[in-house]
């Protein structure tokens, strides 16, 4: 699993829209129907559905239709765990390599002292 590459371009494109961000924020709280997502937004259900399709196409959201209700959920839990790991690992290294620079400066300062 998780062999697909993270399509950051499409993800950021999808998140560049305020309405879609509002929808994603709502979905981080738990699954919701399209009409629930539409509730705080001043737009038609059809427009909301289009936004949902954008979020779905970049893999941020997964939807499932049961009867007449389409339920949306965030579909990135496993992926964001991996992303989180990479981010943390990288950040850890950034901090360490900063400290390496500080140590090198201190060593140089000590050697310059008479």
């Amino acid at each position, binding site marked *: 699993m998780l062999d697909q590459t993270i399509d950051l371009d499409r993800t950021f494109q999808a998140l560049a829209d305020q309405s879609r961000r509002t929808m994603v924020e709502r979905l981080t709280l738990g699954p919701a129907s399209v009409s629930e997502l539409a509730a705080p937004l001043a737009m038609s259900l059809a427009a909301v559905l289009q936004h949902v399709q954008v979020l779905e196409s970049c893999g941020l959201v997964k939807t499932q239709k049961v009867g007449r209700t389409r339920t949306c959920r965030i579909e990135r839990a496993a*992926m964001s765990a991996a992303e989180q790991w*990479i981010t943390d690992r990288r*950040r850890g290294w950034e*901090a360490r390599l900063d*400290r*390496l*620079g500080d*140590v090198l*400066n201190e060593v140089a300062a000590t050697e310059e002292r008479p």
Partner: protein
Amino acid sequence: MTQRSVAHDTFVIERSYDAPVTQVFGAWADPTLKARWFVGSAEALGAGYDLDFRVGGREAFRGGSPGGTVHTYESRFHDIVPEQRIVYTYEMYADEARISVSVATVEFQSVGAVTRLVLTEQGVFLDGHDTAAQREEGTRTFLESLAASLSGDAS
């Protein structure tokens, strides 16, 4: 139950230091110097941190807040070309759970008085279950480095 999963990734970080390559490489080879920047304290040497810098040699670090998750790092050096490169593999554990296995390559390049360092890490992240501990570790490292930069004292 542990949900099994794997995720692979690679990242590259480049840095330039105003120091000759002998010094930059030396900071990776000398246990006291390396403890100062790798762990953040020279006192960690022999007290949680150990470094045996030679091909086949090992490096280890155990740490964590009292009563919290114990983070263990264990590495082995596979290739050392003085002042040119270091290749090592390492495992990370959160308590007993193996959370990742990585290959790290550090390349050193002398450019006049400046040393360019390129660190490449290729890793496999296992089971993805311990992101909370990872996040805590990442945040801690970040806050420590922030505190150090604000106080102007990173030793």
